[in-house]
């Protein structure tokens, strides 16, 4: 095989031969000039050497300007889009089921003017992200205070002054606490003895309980932990046999239940029942922490548990005002049920999920007086911003 040098030498030799044998191009040049003579020349012929670059730079400049205009238009479009998105986030709004919209998933009002609303952006699963808004003018304006990637909170609790507060996560989302009205939030850990936080209930911004499976070698036991300093420190108060407490000793007991406390000493544990899974269905029942134990509550027997879409109405202690979200879904709504026993001073709050299930919560208070003294003007302002409508 010839070397590269040989090939180069042969190429140069061939080039000489090619040049020598190449026919005359005089006629072609004459034809070219004849064509040039009949070809119109441009008005601005380049004669000076630097002119080419001047013209080139004009083109480059035009191109650059066009690019800048395009970039500016793109940036403007993105900016407008983000601004609209931000505006949307600053104004809570209730979405349409089946679409990627937002739903209110939490609410806490410490006065008719000041309160917090959590809304979760999702279609059916309400999987998040969730945004916490605060209003100090009865819902006329809202501030975005906290965003997390997860489902809506199970609770939002604030003290009477609106300074100390916490958000109780759901579905593995941790606790968030604030000491400055929501301007800054800290993530709190669950007790280290627990594998998971299955049930959490906070009475207020400082006192709460958490129930979860214990980190023990013997499975099937849950621990109840209590805090009085806003989830900073936890104390174990009980150890529960899940199979006994949650399933009458039957197989299939789990920590699927609802937990609620009326005050520091009285609380209810309402174990859930699951149908269609081969696990025996257990009648709904309540556990009280301080009384004789299980309390029969037949009025709730008609309900099946499901995820709570609506939130319990928030009323003031003297029932001078009350805020309630009404989510307009396909076949769903939030319904209030008056306790059959007025002496219990409880009314039942049931939320019908759009998937067809029911869920219930107990809210202390006297509904009838709350209805009578309902402050519609305040809730209208919430309605106007959130798309909800007042109850009643």
């Amino acid at each position, binding site marked *: 095989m010839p070397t590269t040098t040989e*090939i180069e030498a*042969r190429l140069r030799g061939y080039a000489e031969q090619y040049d020598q044998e190449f026919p005359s*191009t005089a006629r*072609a040049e004459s034809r*070219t000039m004849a064509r040039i003579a009949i*070809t119109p*020349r*441009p008005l601005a012929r380049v004669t000076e050497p630097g002119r*080419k670059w001047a013209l080139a730079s004009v083109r480059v400049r035009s191109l650059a300007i066009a690019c800048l205009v395009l970039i500016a238009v793109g940036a403007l479009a993105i900016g407008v889009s983000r601004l609209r998105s931000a505006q949307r986030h600053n104004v809570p709004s209730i979405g349409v089921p089946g679409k990627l919209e937002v739903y209110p998933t939490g609410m806490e009002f410490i006065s008719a003017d000041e309160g917090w609303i959590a809304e979760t952006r999702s279609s059916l699963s309400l999987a998040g992200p969730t945004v916490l808004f605060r209003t100090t003018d009865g819902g006329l304006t809202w501030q975005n205070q906290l965003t997390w990637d997860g489902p809506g909170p199970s609770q939002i609790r604030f003290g009477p002054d609106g300074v100390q507060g916490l958000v109780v996560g759901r579905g593995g989302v941790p606790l968030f606490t604030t000491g400055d009205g929501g301007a800054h939030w800290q993530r709190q850990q669950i007790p280290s003895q627990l594998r998971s936080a299955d049930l959490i209930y906070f009475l207020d911004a400082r006192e709460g309980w958490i129930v979860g499976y214990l980190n023990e070698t013997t499975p099937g036991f849950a621990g109840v932990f209590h805090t009085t300093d806003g989830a900073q420190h936890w104390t174990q108060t009980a150890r529960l046999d899940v199979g006994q407490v949650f399933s009458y000793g039957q197989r299939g007991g789990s920590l699927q239940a609802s937990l609620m406390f009326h005050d520091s000493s009285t609380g209810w544990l309402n174990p859930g029942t699951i149908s269609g899974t081969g696990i025996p269905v257990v009648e709904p029942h309540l556990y009280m922490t301080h009384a004789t134990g299980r309390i029969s509550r037949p009025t709730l027997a008609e309900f099946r548990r499901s995820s709570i879409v609506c939130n319990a109405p928030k009323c003031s202690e003297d029932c001078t005002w009350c805020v309630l979200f009404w989510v307009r879904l396909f076949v769903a709504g939030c319904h209030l049920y008056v306790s059959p026993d007025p002496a219990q001073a409880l009314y039942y709050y049931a939320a019908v999920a759009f998937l067809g299930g029911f869920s219930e919560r107990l809210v202390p208070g006297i509904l009838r007086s709350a209805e009578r003294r309902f402050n519609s003007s305040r809730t209208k302002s919430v309605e106007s911003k959130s798309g909800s409508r007042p109850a009643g």
Partner: protein
Amino acid sequence: MNDDQAWFEQRVRTLGRPAIKYANVLVHDMNLAEEIVQEAFARAWASPTTPSVAVEFRSYLYRIIANLAHDYYLRQSRRAMLNPQGPVLMDPQEMAERRAADDAMKRALTILGLRERQAVYLRYFEDLSVAETARIMGARQGTVRVIVYRALRKLRRHLSTNEVSDVVAI
């Protein structure tokens, strides 16, 4: 004749022949090469951005020629796709004449791609430097070196395999 036309005629007289030689290497057809060069000069004449400095004018002209040759091959390939034909049978007499004229190298050059032919012609036929070749081809010097290297390698392989066995019966 005004100054512009006189200036341009000077360019045609100076660059006409090398330009046709260049185009002929690219398209392997003398008549087509003349047409391409004529078209290239006409475009250079009609364009307001044609440089006036001789070296730059040549680069500009050669680029037009290369573009026109590229367009020609593009049309050829499209036509071939539309009208598929069998291999062209070469006239033995023509073949003998060609062989007598340029031997194996001319045929070897036909196996090169357009860019390779450009680079080889500018480097070895016009003895341009890599920098000048790169400027005319509108490529970086490193790219030109790679193109030339690959072209030479192709030529080596082709010449080594065909010179021994290529015997044409007349």
